[in-house]
């Protein structure tokens, strides 16, 4: 007899519907699983067999064939366990076929029959267009986030069989989880002094410009970077869903609040491998740190200590907002539209920056600067030197602006960008930039003199203009004036100038 049960599998962050077909026939007892299962998927055989026996049922001593359709799609992980078990029971006549009509099954089976959650439940549920889905109790809240399905819960396979047979009603869904509220995001008012760095943060948040802090240890680079997410607006529904899907697919336990509403902040260590940063890996393509930072902030502290190949892998996602991971058998697109904040020291000893401040040789400095490639540096539109705050500023009682005040200005600028038809000002290009950021004559002069002095490349000019547009927006100016351009130029300093005038 043949049974057909619906489930889904995960590739990258996307769920793909899978039809599990089970054929039970008289013959030499065997169990064959076909349809491109990977190793953990193939091991469903043992888990299903043990779970069935633990649930008080008898393993059918028949010739069992399981096909996972579409057969050309790779099936990864244990998320099909539950569907295989149910299919087997239907094919064996233990459960009426009608009971599984319009029901999708997502879950991994324990040997004792427990139904366990799997990574990416949100995406898997999204891939199923049936009326109801059955999940384990711990995946319930995640599965309900979409709101498209009736979500049914069973703790064990035995409970599920009883419910499907109509012997007992479906168990109650678990009560909403109670967890302590997440700690509030650090506030910008904690930062003393640093007017330029604060302004750079504001510009980066408002216009979506990637940011680089260069300064000695203890100047507050990390402290500043951690305050960036607090300046960003809440994620809208679509983005929040996308971010949640990524986090779910990466196997992160989601917040009790449900969707990821606040921009995520990811700070991978500088020992990170290229795959951990960009995504990929064996079998199931896992989202990397840059995808985890989607719609949020990716903070790379000690930028110079990251491997050069790792950093250069960031260039394409920075440009396109997605990572395309291609393997021989499959291609996966992972969203990765993040705001990059990087921090590094000015020289090997860390104390340099100001002319004459350290005695690192010029070649040592040049070697240090070369660790970050020019093309990557070029994509960081806001680059500021940070110095340690003065004693007076550190101990002074002057109240600094709070994150909420700055976030309001940031939100206003983002609304303006939205009216221009772009997500953020940093996305303005070509004619859209010309229309959105008309320059006054004096502003053109400033830009021209910078070009003549060789401080800017052609690409640099348009990047400076987008930053100037953001600065003008922050000051509610309609046109981009000279001081906006001058400030934008100052926010794009050549922090590792290798050549200096002899005298």
């Amino acid at each position, binding site marked *: 007899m043949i049974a057909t049960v619906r489930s889904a599998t995960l590739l990258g962050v996307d769920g793909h519907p899978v039809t599990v077909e089970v054929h039970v026939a008289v013959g030499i007892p065997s169990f064959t699983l076909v349809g491109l299962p990977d190793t953990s998927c193939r091991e469903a055989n043992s888990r299903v067999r043990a779970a069935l026996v633990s649930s008080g049922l008898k393993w059918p001593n028949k010739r069992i064939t399981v096909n996972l359709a579409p057969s050309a799609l790779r099936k990864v992980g244990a998320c099909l366990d539950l569907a295989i078990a149910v299919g087997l029971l239907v094919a064996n006549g233990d459960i009426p076929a009608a009971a599984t009509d319009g029901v999708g099954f997502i879950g991994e089976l324990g040997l004792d029959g427990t139904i366990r959650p799997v990574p990416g439940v949100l995406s898997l549920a999204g891939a199923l267009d049936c009326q109801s889905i059955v999940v384990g109790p711990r995946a319930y809240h995640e599965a309900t986030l979409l709101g498209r399905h009736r979500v049914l819960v069973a703790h064990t396979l035995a409970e599920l069989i009883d419910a499907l047979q109509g012997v007992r009603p479906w168990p109650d869904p678990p009560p909403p989880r109670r967890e302590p509220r997440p700690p509030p995001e650090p506030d910008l008012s904690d930062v003393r002094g640093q007017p330029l760095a604060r302004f750079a943060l504001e510009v980066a948040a408002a216009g979506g410009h990637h940011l680089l802090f260069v300064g000695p240890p203890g100047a507050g680079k990390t402290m500043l970077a951690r305050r960036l997410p607090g300046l960003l607006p809440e994620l809208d529904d679509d983005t929040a869903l996308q971010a949640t899907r990524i986090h779910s697919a990466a196997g992160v336990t989601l917040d009790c609040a449900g969707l990821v509403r606040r921009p995520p902040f990811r700070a991978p260590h500088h020992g990170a491998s290229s795959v951990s940063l960009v995504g990929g890996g064996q079998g199931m393509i896992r989202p990397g740190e840059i995808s985890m930072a989607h719609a949020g902030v990716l903070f790379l502290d000690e930028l110079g200590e990251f491997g050069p190949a790792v950093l250069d892998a960031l260039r394409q996602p920075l440009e396109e907002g997605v990572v395309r991971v291609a393997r021989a058998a499959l291609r996966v697109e992972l969203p990765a539209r993040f705001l990059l904040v990087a921090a590094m020291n000015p020289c090997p000893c860390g104390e340099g920056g100001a002319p004459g401040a350290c005695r690192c040789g010029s070649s040592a400095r040049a070697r240090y600067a070369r660790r970050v490639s020019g093309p990557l540096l070029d994509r960081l539109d806001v680059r500021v030197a*940070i110095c340690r705050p003065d004693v007076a500023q550190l101990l002074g009682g002057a109240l600094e602006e709070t994150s909420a005040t700055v976030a309001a200005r940031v939100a206003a600028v983002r609304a303006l960008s939205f009216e221009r038809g772009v997500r953020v000002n940093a996305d303005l290009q070509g004619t859209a930039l010309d229309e959105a950021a008309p320059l006054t004559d004096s502003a053109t002069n400033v830009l021209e003199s910078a070009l003549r002095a060789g401080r800017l490349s052609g690409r640099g000019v348009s990047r400076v203009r987008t930053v100037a547009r953001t600065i003008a927006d922050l000051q509610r100016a309609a046109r981009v004036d000279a001081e906006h351009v001058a400030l934008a130029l100052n926010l794009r300093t050549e922090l590792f100038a290798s050549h200096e005038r002899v005298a």
Partner: protein
Amino acid sequence: MSRTSGDLPPEAWAVALAGLPLMGPARLLALLRRWAPEESWQRVCCEGWLRDRTVVATAGKEPAALAQLWSAAATQVDVAAVWQRHVDFGVGVAALGSPAYPAPLANDIEPPGVLFMSGQPGVISGPRVAIVGTRSATRYGLDLAYELARELAAAGVAVVSGLALGIDGAAHAGALAADTAPPIAVVGSGLDTVYPRRNLSLWREVERRGVVLGEAPLGAPPERWRFPARNRLIATLADVVIVVESRDTGGSMHTVAEAERRGRPVFAAPGPIRSATSVGTNRLLRDGAHVVCDAGDVLVALGLSSALCRSLRDRRPAPAPEDAGVLDAIGWAPISLDRLAARTQQPLGQLALALNRLCAQGWVVERSGWFERVARSEP
């Protein structure tokens, strides 16, 4: 290929000796003082110098090992070919005692055994002043070195320095800008090895209008030990040594020590007491060095009239009144935009615009996000 000794001048043997590994100025001098160059070479080849106590005294702890190293290296050397290379390159070679050897060096306590010169060796006459300092200088030091060198050169004083980055380079550039007294450079590498590469054009210009000296034969890399030796030559060549910016330790302080051994007056330019690059110069002042505030101070010490100084007209357009306030607030130490904003209480945008104008007019330069005031106009 072996030629009879009659074909080669004594300098050829001295050059070959200078090219041996671990052949420092003291060892070369001891050999050449004891024997004629050719005989010195023969003795190095057969390790015969080991029997002479004055020479062995310079050889360190293990003279036998050094003798083996030298004799092994010497067998690889074709003296005639080495000499031919120097002749072809057009580099002037003067062994100690030869008429071409510059007089100020000949009378020194540690004269170089053999000297290499490129340019016009004749310019080493008349008053000379060394201007030295740190390689990682601030704009204040670079400006000061340039200005002093330009004014001294304009007054007919030859400026001696080491063609290094930072203060040295600025001093040479200033001397060249005056276009009066020829510049003199002493370097630590062979004259065909321009080091640092960044000063290539400066090196060529000094060669064209003055002279570049060195103790190393062609092809010698800029090894670390050659620079203290180079500093002693700078101190020897100069009548007065000026330190513009220096850290607590470093090459400039070594030059000062060498100058003091030779009784040369030392001048130091005072700097901010908090500036790392002025720690050395301020300490020199505390220890009794002369203060240099302008070229006149040095000219008086040389017995020249300070009236010879002529100051250069500042060709920069005067800053606008609102920019002048910013310029004053910058002061003479490097400052970041942050600090400047705190000091002037002006909004960042206005400040950026003012700095942009000041940079364009040449009043201020920006380096890695730091602003420094420029004292003088570009030549």
